[in-house]
C-alpha cells in the first residue's frame, strides 16, 4: 500500500469481514508485459453489498473477470466458503453460484419477460415440450418475490431499460447465484429507477445474498454499499465501511494527486467559459428521428466546445451520428456556415467539413493496416484525385505522430500493435491534417486511464483554440464537465437544459438529466 495514512489501516481492520463467502488473497494478473492487478486482497461476506471503485484501468474489470471465471491464469488464491478454488471457465463460476449483470444487458429483446427469466432452462411438461403456463406463473412469482411488478408476457424489448435490468438480475438469481456482480448498474438509470434497483438490492441483502457493486457513480456506491474497496493502478488502496467516509475521501484515494483538472470535474463547481458571440458553424433546427430524439435544436460555434450530456439511451449518440450523415433524421434542418446541407452519407458530411470520432475503437480503426493508412483514409481525396501518394501520406502521418506524441513513433506499425490510448489518438489524428469546421467526438475518454484522459483534454482544447467548433457527446458527466464550454443536457430524446456562462457541478448536471 503506497503510504496511506494510519487512519486508513485503522478503518480497514475495523471492518474486516468475519466469515467471508468469497475471499481472494494476493491476486496478481498481467497481460503480456502489462500488470493489471498486483497483490490484491478482496473478501465478500454473506448479506453484504460491497462497492468496488477505481478509475478506468484501475483493475476493476480484471478482478471481476477472475471472480467470474473468465481469466483462469492468475497468481494468488481464491477461496470459496473457505475452500481454495480456481475457476477454469465462466461456467465453473456460475455453477459455484457467482452471477454477473453486465452494463450491456444480455437480454433477448424479442422474447417475453418470462422467457428471459428462464432463458436456457425453461420448465417442460411430461411430453418434453415447454410448459408455458408454469413458466409464466413461476416467473411472475419469482419477480414479485423480488418486488418487481412487471407483466411476464410482455416482450422484453418493450420494457424500459431499468426494468430489463431487473429482469436480467432476476434471471441471474433464478439460475442459482448467491454472489452477484453488478457492473455499472446505475449508469443508464433515471433517479426513480435507481431507487427501485436499490430497494431490490436491499431485499437481496436481507435474504443473505452477496453483491459486488461496481460503479463510477460514487454517491450511489456510498449509499447502497456496506463496504467499499478502492483500486488504483492495479493495487488495492483500501477497504472501508461506506458509512465512515465521504465522496471526497474516496476520490482522493481513487485518483491520488496531481490531476487537479480531472479531480475538479468529479466534484465541486466548474466555470463554463462559453463564447456566445463566436460565429455559428453548425446550426441544427428541430431535428427529429423516430424514437431516438425529438425536436433538437443546437448551435456549434467556432472555437467553442459544446458538450451534450445524457444518460445512456437518451438519444445523444444517435444525434451525433446524424450530424455525420450516419443516422438519418426524419425532420429538421441543418446549416453549415449558414448554408443548408443534407447529408445522404458520411462521405458528404466529411466533404462539408465535419469530422467524427466514434465511441468504440473497433469502429474507427483498421487494426491490420499501418498507422499511416489509418491516418490518410479521411484525406486521400484531398491529397490527389486518382493516384495514391504514399510518400506524402507517410510524411503527413509522421507530423501527426510527432505532434500528438503517439508511441511508438513509427508510421509503418500495424495499428493493432499500439496501446488503446495511442489507437484513440490515431482515430483523432486522422482528422487533423486538414482541420475540419466541426469535430464531433462521441465518448472521447471512455475506457481511458487518467494520463490518456488528460492528453485528450489537452488535445481537444488545443483544437478549440485553433477555431474548430467541437461537439462532445458523452454519458459520463466527468467527460463533459472536463471539456465543455457550454453544456446541453438531453433527457429521453429531448434537450432538457442548457448551461452557458455559469458555474455548474456534477450534481446540477445530474439533477436535470
Amino acid at each position: 500500500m503506497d503510504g496511506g495514512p494510519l487512519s486508513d489501516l485503522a478503518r480497514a481492520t475495523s471492518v474486516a469481514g468475519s466469515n467471508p463467502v468469497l475471499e481472494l488473497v494476493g491476486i496478481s494478473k498481467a497481460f503480456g508485459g502489462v500488470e493489471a492487478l498486483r497483490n490484491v486482497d478482496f473478501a465478500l461476506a454473506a448479506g453484504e453489498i460491497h462497492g468496488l471503485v477505481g478509475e478506468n484501468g484501475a483493475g476493476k474489470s480484471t478482478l471481476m473477470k477472475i471472480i467470474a471465471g473468465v481469466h483462469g491464469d492468475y497468481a494468488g488464491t481464491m477461496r470459496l466458503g473457505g475452500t481454495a478454488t480456481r475457476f477454469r471457465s465462466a461456467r465453473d463460476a456460475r455453477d459455484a453460484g457467482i452471477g454477473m449483470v453486465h452494463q450491456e444487458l444480455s437480454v433477448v429483446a424479442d422474447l417475453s419477460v418470462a422467457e428471459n427469466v428462464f432463458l436456457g432452462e425453461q420448465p417442460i411438461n411430461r411430453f418434453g415440450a415447454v410448459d408455458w403456463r408454469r413458466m409464466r406463473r413461476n416467473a411472475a412469482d419469482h419477480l414479485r418475490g423480488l418486488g418487481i411488478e412487471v407483466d411476464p408476457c410482455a416482450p422484453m424489448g418493450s420494457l424500459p431499460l431499468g426494468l430489463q435490468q431487473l429482469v436480467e438480475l432476476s434471471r441471474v438469481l433464478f439460475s442459482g447465484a448467491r454472489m452477484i456482480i453488478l457492473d455499472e448498474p446505475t449508469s443508464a438509470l433515471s433517479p426513480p429507477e435507481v431507487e427501485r434497483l436499490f430497494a431490490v438490492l436491499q431485499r437481496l441483502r436481507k435474504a443473505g445474498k452477496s453483491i459486488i457493486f461496481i460503479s463510477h457513480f460514487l454517491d450511489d456506491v456510498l449509499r447502497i454499499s456496506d463496504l467499499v474497496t478502492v483500486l488504483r493502478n492495479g493495487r488495492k488502496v483500501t477497504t472501508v465501511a461506506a458509512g465512515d467516509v465521504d465522496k471526497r475521501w474516496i476520490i482522493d484515494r481513487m485518483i491520488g494527486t496531481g490531476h487537479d483538472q480531472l479531480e475538479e470535474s468529479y466534484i465541486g463547481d466548474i466555470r463554463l467559459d462559453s463564447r456566445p458571440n463566436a460565429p455559428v458553424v453548425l446550426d441544427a433546427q428541430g431535428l427529429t428521428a423516430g424514437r431516438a430524439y425529438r425536436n433538437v435544436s443546437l448551435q456549434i460555434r467556432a472555437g467553442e466546445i459544446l458538450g451534450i450530456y445524457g444518460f445512456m439511451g437518451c438519444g445523444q449518440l444517435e444525434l451525433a451520428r446524424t450530424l455525420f450523415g450516419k443516422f438519418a433524421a426524419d425532420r429538421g434542418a441543418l446549416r453549415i456556415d449558414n448554408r443548408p446541407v443534407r447529408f445522404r452519407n458520411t462521405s458528404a458530411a466529411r466533404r462539408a467539413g465535419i469530422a467524427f470520432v466514434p465511441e468504440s475503437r473497433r469502429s474507427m480503426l483498421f487494426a491490420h493496416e499501418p498507422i499511416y493508412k489509418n491516418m490518410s483514409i479521411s484525406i486521400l481525396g484531398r491529397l490527389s484525385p486518382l493516384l495514391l501518394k504514399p510518400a506524402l501520406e507517410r510524411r503527413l502521418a509522421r507530423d501527426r505522430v510527432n505532434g500528438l506524441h503517439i508511441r511508438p513513433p513509427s508510421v509503418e506499425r500495424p495499428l493493432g500493435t499500439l496501446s488503446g490510448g495511442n489507437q484513440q489518438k490515431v482515430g483523432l489524428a486522422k482528422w487533423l491534417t486538414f482541420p475540419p469546421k466541426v469535430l464531433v467526438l462521441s465518448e472521447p475518454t471512455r475506457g481511458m486511464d487518467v494520463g490518456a484522459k488528460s492528453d485528450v483534454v489537452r488535445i481537444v482544447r488545443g483544437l478549440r483554440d485553433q477555431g474548430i467548433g467541437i461537439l462532445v457527446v458523452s454519458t459520463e458527466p466527468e467527460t463533459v464537465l472536463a471539456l465543455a464550454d457550454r453544456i446541453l443536457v438531453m433527457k429521453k430524446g429531448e434537450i432538457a437544459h442548457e448551461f452557458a456562462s455559469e458555474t455548474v457541478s456534477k450534481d446540477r448536471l445530474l439533477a436535470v438529466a
Partner: protein
Amino acid sequence: MTTEETSATAAARAAVTRNWLRNQLRNIAPFLTLLFLVLFFALASPSFVTFDNLANILTQISVSAIMAVGLTFVILCAEIDLSVASVANATGIIVAFFTLQEASVNIANIPLPGALAIVFALLSCLLLGAVTAFGVTWIGIPSFIMTLAMLEIGAGISAMLVRGQIAYAVPPLITTLGSGSLGAVPWIVIVATAALGLGHLMLTYTRFGRYVYMVGGNREAAEYSGVNVRAIIAAVMVISALCSGIAGMLGVAHFGSAQQDEFDNYLLDSISAVVVGGTSLFGGQGGIPNTIVGLFVLGVLNNGLDHINIDSFLKILIRGLILLAALIINVYAQRLRAEKPLA
C-alpha cells in the same frame, strides 16, 4: 554484450520471424502448393513440363482469369459474386444474338454491325452489374443471395435468347481476341494479362483501390472515416459484372459456340482461384498477385491431372479437396492474424 542480452535479441528476432511467417501464411501457402503441384506433375509425366503445355495452361486459365479479376475486387470488399459465370454466359450469348448467324442456325436474332453488338453486350453486363449493385447497396440484400438471384436471371436471359439452339458467329474483333494469336501468343492470354495488370494497378496505386481494401478491412471504420462505402461496394459489383461480360464474350469465341450452361464450371473455378490464392474471404487482405498464384494452382491441377491419365470423376473430387484445404488455410490465416501480434 552479455550472453543474456544476446539470447534476448535472438529471442526477439525469432519472435519477429514467427510474426512475419504467421502474417504471410496466406501468401506463402498457395505458392508452396503451386511449387509442389508443378514438381509432382513434372515427375509424374514427361509431357507436363514442355513449352507447349505451358502455353496450354495459360490459354486454359485465361477465361477464368478475367472473371477472377472482378471477383478479387468483390472478395476484397468482403462480398461475394455468385453470378459471374451466369453473367458471362448471358453476355456471350447477347453478343452472338446481335451478330449475323449462318442460315443453319435457327435463332430469331437481330443482326447488327459488330461494334454495335459489342457495345450492346457490354451495356447488358453493366446493366446486370448495376442491378446487383442496387440490390446489395440500396435495398440491402446480402450479396450472397442477391447474386444468386442474378445467377438465375443471367441463366434465364441466356435460355430465352438461344432457346436451346447454338449460335456460332460473333463479331470479328471478338473472334480475334478469343481465338486468334499475336505471333505465338494467343490474344486471350494477352487480354487476361492486361486485365490482371490493370486490376493490380487499380488496387495498388489508386485511391479507389485503397478504399476497396479499407472497406473490406473494417467497413464500419471506413464509413466513420467518411468513405462512401455504398459507392465502393456498388462499384466492385459493377466491375465484377464487366469482367464477367468480357470473359463471356471472349469465352464464346474461344469455345467456338454460344449456348446455354456453357460456363457452368467457371463459377467454381474463378472463386476457387481467388480463394486458393489467399485473398481473405473476410475482406481487406490479398490481391491480384494472390489471384494469379491461385489461377496457376487450379490451372496446373486441371491440366496436370489430364497428363497423368487419371479417372476423370476422381478429378472432380480432387479439386474439391484442394478447395477445402485452401478454405481451411484461409480461415486459419485469418485467425492467426486476428490474435494479438507477439510483443
